[in-house]
C-alpha cells in the first residue's frame, strides 16, 4: 500500500480525533467552571457533592469511565442504546472527566486572587456578579492558561482512548491499518500526527497568553 492511501485512511481518523478534541473542550471548559463554583460553594451539600465528583473522576482511569458511560445504560437501566451511542458516550466520558480537572484549575485561579480586590470592588459599589466577571475572571483566565494548556495537550493524546469503544479515531485506525498491512509505519505516522497537533495547540495557547499579557 502506498503512503498516500494510508494517509487517506488515517485522515478519516484525524477528523474524528479532532471532533472528540473540540467537542470535549467546548463542553468541559464551561462545565468545569460550574463544578469549580460548586466546589467553593458555602452550601456544604453542594460542596461535598462536587468534591466527591472530582475525586471519582480524577481517581479512576478514563478508559474505565468510557466503558461505564457506554455500557451503563444497558447494564444499569436496561436501555439498549445501539451503536449510534458510541460517539456520544465517548464525548460524554471525556467531558465529565476533563471538567473535573478544569474545575480544580479554575479553583486555583479564583482563589489566587487576593481578598483585597473583592473588598475594594465592594467599596466601589460593584455587585458580586460584576466583581466576578469584570475584575476576577479576566485575571483568572490569564493565570490559568499554562495549566489549561497542559490539560489540552493531554487531551489530544487521550483521544486515543476512544479505541476501547472502537470509535474509529486516529489511533484505532492506525492499529487496524498496521494489522492489515503487518507494518509499524501507520503507528509512526499516528505519533507524528499527535506531535504536530500538539505543536499547533502549544502555538495557539502561547499566542493567547501573549495577547492577554497586556499589563506586562
Amino acid at each position, binding site marked *: *500500500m502506498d503512503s498516500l*492511501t494510508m494517509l*487517506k*485512511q488515517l485522515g*478519516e481518523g484525524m477528523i474524528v480525533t479532532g471532533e472528540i478534541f473540540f467537542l470535549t473542550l*467546548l*463542553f468541559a*471548559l*464551561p*462545565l468545569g*467552571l*460550574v463544578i469549580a463554583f460548586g466546589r467553593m460553594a458555602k452550601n456544604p451539600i453542594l460542596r461535598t457533592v462536587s468534591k466527591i465528583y472530582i475525586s471519582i473522576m480524577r481517581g479512576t482511569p478514563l478508559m474505565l469511565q468510557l*466503558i461505564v458511560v457506554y*455500557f451503563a*445504560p*444497558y*447494564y444499569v437501566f436496561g*436501555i*439498549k*442504546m*445501539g*451503536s*449510534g*451511542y*458510541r460517539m*456520544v458516550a465517548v464525548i*460524554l466520558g471525556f*467531558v*465529565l472527566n476533563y471538567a473535573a480537572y478544569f474545575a480544580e484549575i479554575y479553583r486555583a485561579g479564583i482563589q489566587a486572587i487576593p481578598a483585597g480586590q473583592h473588598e475594594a470592588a465592594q467599596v466601589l459599589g460593584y455587585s458580586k456578579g460584576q466583581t466576578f*466577571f*469584570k475584575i476576577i*475572571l*479576566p485575571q483568572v483566565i490569564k493565570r490559568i492558561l499554562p495549566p489549561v494548556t497542559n490539560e489540552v495537550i493531554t487531551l489530544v493524546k487521550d483521544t486515543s482512548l476512544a*479505541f*476501547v*469503544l*472502537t470509535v*474509529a479515531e486516529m489511533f*484505532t*485506525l492506525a*492499529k*487496524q*491499518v*498496521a*494489522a*492489515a*498491512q*503487518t507494518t*509499524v509505519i501507520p503507528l509512526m505516522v499516528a505519533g507524528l500526527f499527535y506531535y504536530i497537533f500538539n505543536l499547533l495547540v502549544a502555538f495557539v495557547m502561547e499566542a493567547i497568553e501573549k495577547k492577554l499579557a497586556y499589563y506586562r
Partner: protein
Amino acid sequence: MKKLFALLLCAAMTAAMLTGCGEKTPEAQSAVEEKEDVSETAQEGGKKTFTVGFDAEFPPYGYMDDNGEYVGFDLSLAQEVCDRNGWELVKQPINWDTKDMELSSGAIDCIWNGFTINGREEEYTWSVPYVDNSQVFVVAADAGIASSADLAGKVVAVQADSSALAALNSEENAEMTATFGSLNQFADYNTAFMDLEAGSVDAVAMDIGVANYQIESREAGKFVILDDYISTEQYGVGFFLGNKELRDQVQNTLFEMLEDGTFAKIAEEWGLSDVVCLSADEK
C-alpha cells in the same frame, strides 16, 4: 478588545449554565430518541439491519483493506447472507475484550469473526461450525525452538480473551503452560508480532489461519509454525444466548450458499478452502 472579551465570557457562561443545568441528560435523551427513530424507519422501510461485530485487526477474517473498507472472509459471508435475506449489513468493529457487553447490550446482532466455539458452547447460541481451525505456536525461525517442549522458561504471547489463551489454560495443556517463563497477553497480533520480531517474546500462540496470513505477509522464512498444535477447534457464528430465531435464519442461508457453491467460492477467494468445514450433514 475589552468588549469582545466580555462578549466571549458571556457566551462561555451561558454555555456553562446550559450544560450545568442540563447535566447532559438532554443530550443523552436526544441520542435515545435518535436511535429509536433509526430503528423505526428501519422497520417501516422493511430493510432490517444485521449488525456483525468483528475484530478489525483479525485478517483474513475481518480487517481493513487498502481502500479503508472492512473486508474479510467472514464479512463476505455475512454480506451474502444479508443480500439473500434482504437485510442491510452493518459492519461494526468491536473491542474484543468487551464483545460480550456489546452483544448483550444489543449493539451488535452476532459475533462473526473467526469465533471459536470450543470452550464457549454454553455461552452463546451457535451456528454450525464453518471453519476448522487449530491453535498453534509461531516462533522465529532462527530461535532454535522445534517443539512446545522447547518453550519451557520462554516468554509466550497470546491475545487477551482469545481462544488460544483458553486453550493454553485448559486442563490438557495446563502442564505445558506451567513450564513457560511467562504468558503475556496482548491486545492485538500486530503488537505481538512486533515483540516476536524484536525478540522480547519467544512465541506467539494464535489461530492457524491468522498465523498463515501473518507469516506470508511478513519477511519470508522469518517465522515458522510449530508442528505440535495446542488444540484443534472450530469456528462458528455466535449469537446472543437464546436468539435461536436469528441463528436459524442465518444458518439456513449458509446451507443454501453451501448447496449452490457460493460458500466454496467465497472460501476460495480468501484462500481458506483448506480449512472450511461447513457440512449439510449437521443440518
